[in-house]
């Protein structure tokens, strides 16, 4: 069956249950899904559908399975960066942005149940109103989907709340490539969602498998998530942000390790001058350039918090520990940001919500921005910063212009390291070479690209034949017709691994 | 006398928890020296453990297991050190050691046990009243001139076979200490083997005869207190004799005697010994030394023992007195092994193992010496002639620089006798 014909049949199938305005074939709209800011190129979006509920999603998947039509799920609004929503072949886009109900915010058991289209911009203020706080990634765009961000294991700013790499994701409702729906953990049953009394906050199982893990980091290849529960935290009644600066990452890494080991701090992240300037600059390019010049090479941002009971007392004790640890390392924790021109308040504000203005902070310098990010342990962070610097030098890219972000994860037992390379229109080819070579070098040196988007997939799976083989077995179970975002990860014909 | 069928409750209660092979939680020190069952450490099968032996006992009793090839050897590899028993009893109301001993007795009763070397020992004992087949008349040859004996004393020093024939120094040192402390005592020329080698190999009927004989000798000589420097004798008097008849004498170990004398200022440890030692608790002086109290009753709902039973959990073993005495010796530094007191690892010298499985006995002693060395001590001290043989063999085989001292030897040196 030719692709166009298959899509046509698919369209006939879904038209039986989707409303007319939920099926879009307008060329310009479709065109916008064909590429993003990444280097990934691929096939074409042939049709766009907007499911409204689980039954719609099941119907869409069944129709796709019947007609062998690839589906590419998209939940966040544009721009996209990772290439994961760019169809690898002619495909139907399943856009979840109309499934955006906040189904429940439970103040007692501290969780929220969301549809995939719920964005940070939507959820954060709602939670705040009710006295809760969401562990945020660093300044996500406001139209980013909370569910997919958590599914993709994006790091959060408060490592102490994270007990493993999937935390704070709790349970999922998912539609597999077979069209069957499934609920994970304590949302699984007994009975139907209507009769089940559980809150759905136990993520594990049911039974002997951690089903939620198979769908995580999968870029939509293992199932389409129609609902997810995530933890939320108590909104502190008192917060204090401290800045610890250094010319070298090493002492900061040591400080992060000790602070997290003792669980002294809430927010805990380090940014280099380029990133901090991009975030704080009022105007471009002058203010940005000045800030970048004045800010220290690396700044560690740590937040102390007091919750609902005796907040001052808690902060006083934690501050004492903070000072002791900094003292041991010859560092200073200051409430002010040296070189920041008095913009401490702004930092505090920014960290508590998504990025709301245009352009997105990563796009303030140049039209595009290419991120290299991976996981490692804190002990190895300085080494990888060195590796990246070496690669930048080899490619004649000024290292100081690259954004640097260190986000400890899982209580400091791991660390997300992210380099953002701004890229002008005229330097795409050069930056691409740099990006590819730096990624390869980092992987060779033992950086763990746990979310292998775009070109990383081949680099990563090519090194792990047994693991890729196991993943393919799983894929064949949950998506036997290979209709869910085909071509991603190790799931493509001719792909390595 | 107890029988294997008396231990049905133990067999049924075991849940394979594995505590009988590992050091007790409160004593944890690290990865090394965490195991306490010699046969399990060496052979690793579950069957090689207190648990395995009671599982085997149950299957034999129920006719689910035959006396197949290798079974008797298997049952007799166990050193009867009782580490399993004490560990199990730290958490359970079970009789692991007594089940193993009753299993051996059952093998003997069924004509399948013990092993030939144990049978030979029994023959020697039958003929010469000692385990080595040495002439009975020479039993007191260790006695030297100058020792003051008191024929009227109600205290007897009981040397035991191993001391009398193989480690006469221990006997000599012991009586010198008693003299120095001014304790009147007798040496009974008609003492027989205490019965330990027979009891621990399941030859309980033969052991009973020895117990009856020795008890009679004590009675005839008006003995109310028996002093011994042998852990096996000590543990047998306390753990076996009451199974035959209620004992009418008290048993004390030489370390307890010295402790009392020191406390009463009847002895002074003046001689300086610049040495760093670690003390090895002999099984039958430590965890297995509590007096046996016969129990006849019924086990009711939820394990309730009616009437209440006196358990031997190893709480009141002779742990403190040797340590207190050693620490009182000027210049002597005492360091502890990870596995000490009720958690001590066996020297490999008990249960008939050296006679039947000398290589395994040697291996066990070497394992223990390795632990002793790890403390930084230059000597290991114990208070039993069987331990001395086991350790000395291993030291000789390994050409180890570690030294072995019997408790009594160090005390005599410190007393400058």
């Amino acid at each position, binding site marked *: 069956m030719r692709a166009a014909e298959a899509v046509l049949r698919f369209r006939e199938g879904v038209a039986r249950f989707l409303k007319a305005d939920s099926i879009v074939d307008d060329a310009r709209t479709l065109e916008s899904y064909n590429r993003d800011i990444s280097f990934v190129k691929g096939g074409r979006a042939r049709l766009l559908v907007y499911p409204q509920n689980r039954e719609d999603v099941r119907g869409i998947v069944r129709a796709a399975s019947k007609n062998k039509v690839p589906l590419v799920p998209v939940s966040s609004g544009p721009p996209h960066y990772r290439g994961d929503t760019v169809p690898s072949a002619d495909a139907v886009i399943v856009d979840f942005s109309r499934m955006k109900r906040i189904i429940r915010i439970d103040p007692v058991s501290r969780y929220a149940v969301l549809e995939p289209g719920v964005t940070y911009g939507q959820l954060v203020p709602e939670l705040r109103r009710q006295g809760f706080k969401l562990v945020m990634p660093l300044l996500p765009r406001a139209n980013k989907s909370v569910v997919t961000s958590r599914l993709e294991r994006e790091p959060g700013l408060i490592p102490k709340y994270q007990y493993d790499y999937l935390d704070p994701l709790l349970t999922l409702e998912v539609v597999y490539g077979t069209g069957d729906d499934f609920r994970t953990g304590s949302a699984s049953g007994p009975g139907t969602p209507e009769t*089940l009394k559980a*809150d759905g906050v*136990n993520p594990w199982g049911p039974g002997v498998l951690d*089903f939620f893990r198979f769908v995580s980091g999968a870029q939509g290849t293992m199932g389409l998530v129609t609902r997810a529960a995530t933890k939320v935290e108590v909104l502190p009644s008192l917060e204090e942000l401290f800045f610890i600066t250094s010319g070298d990452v090493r002492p900061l890494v040591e400080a992060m390790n000790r602070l997290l080991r003792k669980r002294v701090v809430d927010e805990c992240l380090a940014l280099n001058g380029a990133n901090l300037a991009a975030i704080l600059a009022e105007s471009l390019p002058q203010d940005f350039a000045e800030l970048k010049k004045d800010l220290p090479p690396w700044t560690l941002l740590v937040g102390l918090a007091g919750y609902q009971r005796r907040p001052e007392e808690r902060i006083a004790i934690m501050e004492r520990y903070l000072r002791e640890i900094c003292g041991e390392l010859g560092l200073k924790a200051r409430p002010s940001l040296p070189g920041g021109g008095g913009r401490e308040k702004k930092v505090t504000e920014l960290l508590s919500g998504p990025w709301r203005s245009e352009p997105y902070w990563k796009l303030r310098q140049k039209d595009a921005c290419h991120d290299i990010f991976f996981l490692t*342990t804190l002990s190895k962070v300085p080494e990888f910063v060195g590796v990246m610097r070496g690669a930048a030098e080899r490619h004649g890219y000024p290292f100081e212009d690259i954004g640097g972000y260190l986000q400890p994860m899982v209580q400091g037992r791991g660390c997300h390291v992210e380099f953002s390379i701004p890229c002008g229109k005229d330097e795409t080819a050069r930056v691409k070479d740099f990006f590819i070579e730096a990624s390869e070098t980092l992987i060779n040196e033992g950086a763990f690209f746990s979310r292998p988007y775009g070109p990383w997939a081949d680099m990563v799976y090519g090194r792990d034949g047994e693991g890729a083989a196991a993943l393919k077995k799983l894929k064949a179970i949950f998506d036997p017709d290979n209709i869910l975002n085909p071509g991603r990860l190790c799931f493509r014909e001719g792909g390595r691994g | 006398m107890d029988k294997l069928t008396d231990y049905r409750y133990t067999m049924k209660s075991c849940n394979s928890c594995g505590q009988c092979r590992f050091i007790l939680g409160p004593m944890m020190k690290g990865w090394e020296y965490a195991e306490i069952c010699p046969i399990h450490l060496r052979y690793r099968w*579950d069957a090689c453990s207190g648990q395995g032996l009671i599982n085997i006992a149950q299957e034999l009793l129920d006719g689910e297991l035959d006396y197949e090839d290798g079974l008797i050897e298997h049952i007799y590899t166990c050193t009867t050190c009782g580490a399993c028993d004490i560990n199990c009893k730290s958490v359970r109301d079970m009789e692991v050691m007594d089940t193993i001993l009753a299993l051996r007795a059952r093998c003997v009763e069924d004509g399948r046990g013990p092993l030939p070397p144990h049978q030979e020992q029994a023959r020697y004992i039958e003929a010469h009243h000692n385990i080595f087949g040495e002439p009975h008349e020479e039993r007191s040859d260790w006695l030297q001139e100058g020792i003051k004996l008191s024929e009227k004393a109600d205290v007897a020093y009981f040397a035991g076979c191993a001391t009398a024939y193989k480690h006469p120094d221990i006997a000599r040192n012991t009586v010198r200490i008693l003299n120095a402390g001014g304790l009147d005592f007798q040496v009974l020329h008609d003492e027989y083997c205490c019965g330990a080698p027979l009891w621990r190999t399941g030859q309980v009927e033969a052991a009973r005869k020895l117990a009856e004989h020795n008890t009679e000798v004590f009675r005839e000589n008006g003995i109310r207190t028996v002093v011994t420097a042998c852990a096996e004798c000590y543990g047998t008097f306390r753990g076996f004799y009451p199974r035959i008849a209620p004992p009418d004498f008290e048993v004390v170990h030489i370390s307890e005697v010295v402790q009392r004398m020191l406390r009463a200022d009847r002895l002074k440890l003046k001689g300086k010994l610049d040495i760093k030692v670690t003390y090895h608790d002999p099984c039958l002086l430590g965890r297995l030394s509590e007096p046996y109290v016969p129990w006849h009753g019924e086990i009711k709902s939820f394990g309730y*023992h009616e009437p209440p039973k006196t358990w031997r959990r190893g709480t009141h073993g002779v742990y403190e007195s040797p340590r207190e005495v050693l620490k009182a010796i000027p210049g002597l530094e005492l360091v502890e092994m990870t596995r000490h*007191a009720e958690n001590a690892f066996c020297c490999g010298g008990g249960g008939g193992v050296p006679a039947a499985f000398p290589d395994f006995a040697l291996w066990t002693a070497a394992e223990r010496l390795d632990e002793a060395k790890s403390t930084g001590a230059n000597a290991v001290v114990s208070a039993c002639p069987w331990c001395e043989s086991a350790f000395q063999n291993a030291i000789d085989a390994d050409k180890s620089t570690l030294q072995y001292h019997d408790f009594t030897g160090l005390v005599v040196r410190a007393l400058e006798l």
Partner: protein
Amino acid sequence: MEKVMSLPKEVYQALLKVVGPENIADRPHILAALRHTNPQSGRQPPSPAAVIMPGSVEEVREIVRICNRHGVRYNAVVSMFGMGGVVSQPGMLVISLRRMNRIIEINEFDRYAVIEPAVRQVQLKAEVFKRGLTYPTASAGPSCSVLANFLTSGDHHTQQSSSRCSRYLLGYEWVTPTGEIVRVGSLAHGAGWFCPDGPGPSLRGLVRGYGGWGGGLGIVTRIAIGLDDWKGPRVLTTQGHSPDYKIPFPPDCHRVFIFKFPTLEKVRDAMTEMGKAEIGQAVLKFFYATEAVLFTVSANDFRDLWNSGLYQRELPRALWVYLAAWTPEELAYEERVMRDIVEEFGGEPVDASITRKYEENMDFFILVSFLQRVLKLGGGWSPTKLGADSIHHMFEVAAAIPEFFYDFIEKGRILDAPHNFQVIPMEYGHAAHIELLFFFDNQRPDWQQIPAEVMQKSMESDIRHGFHAATPPRVKAVMERLGPLYSNFQVWTNKIKETFDPNNVSNPGPG
């Protein structure tokens, strides 16, 4: 003896070649220790055909491959403390991993330890303490295998400030049911042991879920586990002799409190608030009868204590709190917060003799050295429920226990202890675990039926109410029956089993 089904000669010989004659056995008396009737479940497992002890991952792989070639069913085992039994079908090969007992690495900075299967709690705990670290240690006794516990269960008393063990399972090395060696997560990428998830979808999801496979999906030969900071002493200062040990902690930074509340709802709410305030190394509603069993040495002592009625009076609606801090000031702060909460919900201290037991035996919060005492009433002890969800849901489940429990009590089949359940919050109250324990009288002729019947009634009650109070067990018939009620999870579980174990040789389970 006929009951042992033996392996074909050529298979035995092939296996013997892999490990050498010292490390394989099929004599019935060696196998006797592997088929003993379990006093907790009442089940007598069938006899295995042989037992083998590999010494390395390569040997494990070879053994597994031989089993696949010849259709021999196998199961891995370490210490056999598990409730399930290791041999599910006659004629299986038991792969005992006892020789693989090394601690490969303890990384103090990045806070993880890499271990082989036969490393025991009593070994690893002491080693990490020495380094000022700790890990979530299941209340499964000192001799339990850390690896097996991380693969099977892993609930423990200090989950308030940490989580279930499964959260702390990092990279692992896995011999698949068909004999491939797969290294999972960062490990496969030369990146170390720290992360089990990715690249891409997480294979960590295969090795265990809420519960574990019980050996049904290959053999894990090494795992890394996450470590947490340890506020207690680096070396235990134990006093006394077995079984009367005392293990006190420095009281200025370690305190135990037990409060009784007017209702269970108040216990629940106080627990919830302590989670929100992020206080407490351990916070739990503990089992009152189990506590009486744990803190007495013999069955007779237990009966005396239980019959005194003290625990029934003080503990059915109580909350246990263990505060641990770096400094006395921090402890004082947590105590003030705790007292605010306790006062708010009408709590008051229980009889001091009960609290003292804990303060003298702080190992309760670190290893539960005396855990096996729960079996001392003849072994007749079993857990049920064993599920997790929110604190509120767990208390809702608890409130319904009397519906099915009293029938067993009234017939004298189980101990009269209707409040013998525990609820332990985890991750500062983001979820909680429930467990209902019952002591059954195994001197009764029908003792072997009691555990299964209680579990059955408990499950029926959960289903009736729509409670997620347990995860369905991996028992084929039960899975098929209950699966449709749990999102048809059995369909996917079976598919995974069939895909990864096409010859169905890795512990196929009973029946």
